[in-house]
């Protein structure tokens, strides 16, 4: 899989409409800058993310996928935590079988005001991805 050299890693973020996407919005509002090659797709709940989508992102050339999970704040109930965990576990298995570094999928619970936490997570993920996938830069 050819990945071009990049100044910043290409990261796909799955956020959630009610909880983590507002935090990402707030990061923008507060001008807490993060790499501009981070793209967000908002879904209703992090436990509804399909393995297939994540694998598709790697196939198309994303360096990393970050799930900004609802955590215990999820409006659809606390089982979200365990179910999102299972999505991650299943995807990790699939990644291993395709020889993709499982660390290229990260998850963190991002509450609706966790903009600082989001930016910190993304920056550290970006560094990891650059180090492992684009060591030349």
């Amino acid at each position: 899989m050819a990945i071009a050299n990049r100044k910043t890693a290409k990261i796909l973020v799955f956020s959630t409409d009610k909880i983590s996407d507002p935090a990402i919005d707030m990061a923008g509002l507060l001008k807490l800058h993060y790499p501009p090659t981070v793209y967000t797709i908002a879904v209703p709940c992090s436990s509804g993310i399909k393995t297939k989508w994540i694998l598709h992102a790697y196939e198309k050339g994303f360096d990393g996928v970050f799930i900004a999970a609802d955590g215990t704040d999820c409006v659809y109930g606390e089982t979200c935590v365990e179910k999102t965990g299972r999505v991650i576990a299943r995807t990790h298995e699939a990644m291993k079988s395709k020889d993709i570094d499982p660390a290229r999928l990260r998850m963190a619970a991002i509450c609706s005001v966790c903009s600082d936490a989001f930016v910190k997570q993304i920056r550290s993920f970006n560094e990891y991805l650059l180090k492992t996938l684009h060591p030349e830069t």
Partner: protein
Amino acid sequence: MEKRIGVYICHCGGNISDYVDVEKVRQSVENDDNIVLAKTTMFACSDANQNEMVEDIKNHNLDAVIVASCSPKLHLVTFRNVTERGDLNKYTYVHANIREQASWAHADNFPAATDKTIQLVKAAIAKSRTTKALEPTKIKAERSVAVIGAGVTGMKAAITLAEKDTHVFLIEKESQVGGWVAKWKDLFMTEETGDMIVKQLHEDLKKRQNVSILLNSEVIGNVGSIGNISLKIKQKEEEFDITVGSVLVATGFEPYKPKEDEFGFGKVPNVITLPEFKQLIDHEKGKLMYNGKKVENIAYIYCVGSRQPEGGNTYCSRYCCTATIHAAIEARKKFKDIQNYHFTRGVRSYGKQELLYAESLQGGDIFLQSYEDDLPTVFARNNRPVVRINDILTGGKELEVEADLVVLVTGMAPRSNDTVGSLFKLPRGRDRFFNEVHMKLRPVETVIDGITIAGACQGPKTILESVNSALAAATKSYSNISKGVLETDPQIATIDVKACTGCGDCIPECPFDAISMVEDKGKTVAVINNTLCKGCGMCTPVCPTDAIDLVAFSNVQIMGMIDALV
């Protein structure tokens, strides 16, 4: 038939166009498949542009539009309505968030922010190509509201809702109504006393047939959503359920409790908090006594638990400057030989309250002001509290006041008990008070549909301000349910019957018991109950044959967006 899409890219009066080359964005999408027109606009949300969009839809035969502007949390509904005015199904509308998630987030990098914006718009186009028309779900709305917390805010909200022919359950965990205000006597800006106000509101409530006051009661369970919310109430030993259409949260504040030795609290003798001082002057008669000694010199230390440089309480508590000035004036009027010393960080007697500050100065109260990085200190000398300050107002002189009583002007803190907040999943701001959706557009609504907030649970407020917010929140709660029917987004899961093998793996995943198995043409398949489904998508990833899709978040749509973002 080929889809005909119109794209509008908003300058947001510079909020976007200062950081993103919007014309370049327009040019890079105008020749994409299905794009019939691509325009930039100064304010997409303005009336003129909205009308232009409606015209464009008709003149260019568009069957879908996309606006790339601010967060969809602000204006998704605005543009869905525009779509509808153009006689399109409003769910064909797709929004691209290029302000909060591009121009502002990457304001430090013009070319990169522009590139990202182009991709976000292309992803929206990809989504738009496969977006289908939908019909909103209609829900019957219960014409009743639960008001949680029977302080002045909750009581006033209950009265105004009851006036609007709505049944109100006023839920209070204490054994009586009135909250903090019931404990107060003299108030600023009014001749009325706190207990009088509470009594007047309580009398009004008791007369109303459509108000049920539930004392000693707590909400311990919450099922359902806007229009039909079932709350489990625990009243002493008893538990029962009530059903309401909307919930108004008015759980109030807690006075800040100073830490051990914060300005001598708990360590230096005769250091008390503002609420304790209020009780003292409201109830003492003749001479002001504390610990058996007559009080003459009183030192007030402002901003205790507010405007802290570190920790959670960086906010200003708003009410305390005026409350303290007022209490000090009352003390001076009521008792003999009182001299007040105010150790402030700049007096914030805003608006008409300014007159109290002027009155206080005229009456001989002494105001000192500390430097921001050099707050006053309180220590004991001869078993008496002493306050030391470097005073700005006398050009930085070090001054000491030997006081008989030191009053720590404690601010408002959010409730430490978060039962209600966590039950309803209410987001909190950085100050840990409940957060509104938008301070100006939707100041009493929360991100949870049907749950409104009022009073000091949203942030420090005076009585007058709390009552205004109570009435405003009641109006919103009322408008949620007043029509008896509510429309909600048809965000639900759908099952591809052909692909379903009837394995039943999805059934335990659903938190709302919306999936069951039925016989369909000789085969057992899963079926979704559309009124129970909330559209979380939890069932979708577990299907071994990938037969479940979430409406508006289907495989085709998400993967199409991923393709556009790479």
